[in-house]
């Protein structure tokens, strides 16, 4: 009887025993994955070294300090063709940032308007916004950019018969010519008052809140602050005798002289990007506002708050929590889509360092790496900022 021993577990080989142990298995999988990834990168780097050697190229960033010898039509800082590639790159970065910031501002304004229109009871405006959003969202952004650029270049007149806006601004197919302000010393006073107005606003909002918490007295904060920021400086401006002269563009020969010019490429890119992204923001805003429970508004009306105060104190703060995360990715999209500038010849990062500089120096590796790193940095910065903002407006839970 004793010999009928406990059934021996079947002898399994080492591999299957290791594989059936959860801990070891995860280690094995990771080691294999790491080895595969490492081998992949190793092979790529090795190939790159061999290939670069074969055509006698090295890797260095020295080319950044050679003269770029190409012109850039629109630049925020002084630049001419004798400057270095590095300076050309800075011009490109600034141009990208310019169009991104302008685009973010315009698309936010238009997007919020569209979102509100989509919620309007007014049938016509609701349908118009709907048609606009559906059309814009379903057509590639590159097409919008080319279309707007084509409209400006082909439909606006030549400088000699420009569209004249009351003799100060001129719309032509070479760009929009506008008066350029130049400041007299007294104008600094206006600027200082404006700064003081902003500082006052910050202080006054806190103060009004304290007073309201303590006594229930309610100040018209918005109008007082508007007066401080806009009204007082405007008054000072008029009292000081308008210390600002305008340099008005004038037609001379085939083009305008003087004033400042906004190039058609910038306008096309800016308008197309903003109007495209605005359609997405409109839908985000609509979704955010509809997501706030109707009971919230009802409760607020029951407490006797007016319609506008219900919106600004109850609905919008809650809607913002839903709106901000997807809004972030739209802002990132504007920044990334601004790289399409190259299709119409606006000189952004991709067109300067990743385009002409690359072609002139033949340094594909260095240029493309710089471009990729720059975009990564922008993306990380924007999302860090929006995460901070998101955290600030988040629901405080106890």
């Amino acid at each position, binding site marked *: 009887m004793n010999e009928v021993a406990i059934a021996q577990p079947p002898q399994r080989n080492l591999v299957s025993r290791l594989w059936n142990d959860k801990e070891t298995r995860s280690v094995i999988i990771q080691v294999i994955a790491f080895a595969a990834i490492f081998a992949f990168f190793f092979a790529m780097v090795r190939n790159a070294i061999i290939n670069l050697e074969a055509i006698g190229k090295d890797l260095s960033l020295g080319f950044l300090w050679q003269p770029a010898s190409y012109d850039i039509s629109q630049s925020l800082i002084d630049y001419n063709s004798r400057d270095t590639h590095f300076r050309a790159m800075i011009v490109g970065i600034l141009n990208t940032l310019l169009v991104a910031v302008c685009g973010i501002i315009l698309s936010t304004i238009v997007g919020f308007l569209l979102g509100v229109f989509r919620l309007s009871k007014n049938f016509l405006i609701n349908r118009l916004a709907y048609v606009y959003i559906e059309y814009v969202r379903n057509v590639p952004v590159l097409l919008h950019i*080319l279309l707007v650029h084509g409209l400006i270049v082909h439909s606006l007149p030549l400088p000699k018969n420009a569209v004249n806006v009351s003799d100060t601004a001129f719309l032509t197919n070479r760009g929009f010519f506008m008066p350029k302000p130049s400041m007299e010393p007294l104008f600094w006073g206006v600027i200082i008052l404006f700064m003081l107005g902003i500082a006052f606003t910050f202080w006054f909002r806190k103060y009004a809140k304290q007073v309201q918490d303590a006594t229930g007295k309610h100040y018209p904060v918005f109008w007082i602050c508007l007066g401080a920021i806009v009204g007082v400086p405007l008054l000072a401006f008029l009292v000081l005798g308008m210390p600002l002269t305008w340099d008005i563009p004038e037609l001379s020969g085939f083009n305008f002289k003087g004033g400042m010019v906004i190039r058609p490429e910038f306008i096309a890119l800016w308008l197309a990007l903003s109007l495209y992204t605005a359609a997405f923001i409109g839908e985000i805003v609509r979704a955010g506002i509809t997501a706030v429970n109707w009971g919230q508004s009802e409760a607020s009306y029951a407490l006797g708050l007016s319609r506008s105060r219900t919106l600004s104190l109850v609905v919008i703060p809650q809607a913002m929590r839903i709106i901000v995360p997807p809004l972030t990715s739209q802002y990132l999209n504007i920044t990334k889509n601004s790289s399409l500038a190259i*299709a119409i010849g606006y000189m952004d990062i991709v067109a300067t360092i990743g385009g002409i500089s690359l072609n002139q120096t033949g340094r594909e590796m260095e240029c493309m790496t710089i471009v990729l790193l720059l975009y990564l940095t922008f993306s990380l910065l924007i999302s860090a900022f929006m995460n901070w903002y998101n955290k600030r407006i988040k629901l405080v839970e106890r």
Partner: protein
Amino acid sequence: MNETTQQYKPGEHPDLPPPRNLVGPVAWVRDHLLSSPTNIVLTFLCVWFLIKVIPPVLDWAFLDAVFTGEDRNACRAQGDGACWAFISERFKLFTYGFYPESEHWRVNLAFILLIAALVPILYDKTPFRKYGLYFSAAYPFIAGYLLLGGDFLFLSLTPVPTTQFGGFMLTLVVGITGIAFSLPIGILLALGRQSKLPIIKVFCVAFIEFIRGVPLITLLFVASTMLSYFLPPGSNFDLLLRVLIMVTLFASGYMAEVIRGGLQAIPKGQTEAADAMGLKYWQSMRLIVLPQALKISIPGIVNTFIGLYKDTTLVIIIGLLDPLGIGRASLSDTKWTGLSNEVYLFVAIFFFLSCFFMSRYSLYLEKKLETGHKR
């Protein structure tokens, strides 16, 4: 008067029709267009806008438009409107690119087969759906062979280099390849990002964040200028293939994030229950978690598809000729110069129709898969 009211017992009086001024078109107009001073102003602004915009656009696009003509001057001689003659003359170019004319039937056949392959995927009541799905899975390879040509077993088609691909056909090639491959890769990346294995997780996070942090156009530039350095010396692979790989990787980065959102929405109890039933990792993912997660993420997935489909236009920047590229190239023809509005509008309509179809289909799918578990 008195007699009629007395005919009813209390509570049995039939419902009276609502007051005239609360129903009907007049009330609708008052309610929806003229309910407040702001609304009245908005309504009048809209009407003014529509009157200003619609007639000129109609005139330009249809009434004054020219549909046949030799060149731009012939168009101008006939009317001030759009010159659609340009589009009709170049229609073949817009559709097939530079694909050899004698082989156009292959593109047409591939397109018909595409519809046949899509039906079983999109419509779940197709007869013999199971076999249809096998066909759909095989479709990318069949279409690839049809378009590329060459010798395969007993078949022999004239090889066509990918440099001759173009037009709407190229859009479909890039778009459909991207859509077909980005979903599975995206699922794997999303699972990797949720994984408990640190190395896999780190790799997936780095990949996804990198892809999402840079614009597609820079990746396409990398594909066209830099990628050849990283390949074994002497090897050279096709520009279209490089573009396809980049587009697919790009879309799968976004897809992964969409699916991760779906995965995070699945309660932990589901995986725990699957573990308790003795399911292995892949079994529990395949049978329990993914079906639910993918269902939640349908709107996001379709949005990514639409985004990818629209992004195929970016290939013109590295010199491939999709419809937009063909249009721009045609614009430089002196015979037809200056007709950019016609070209862009034509291409826009094509993209609008396909993307609008996709978004409507996603709405239908959402409704169909709704099982009442929504909270």
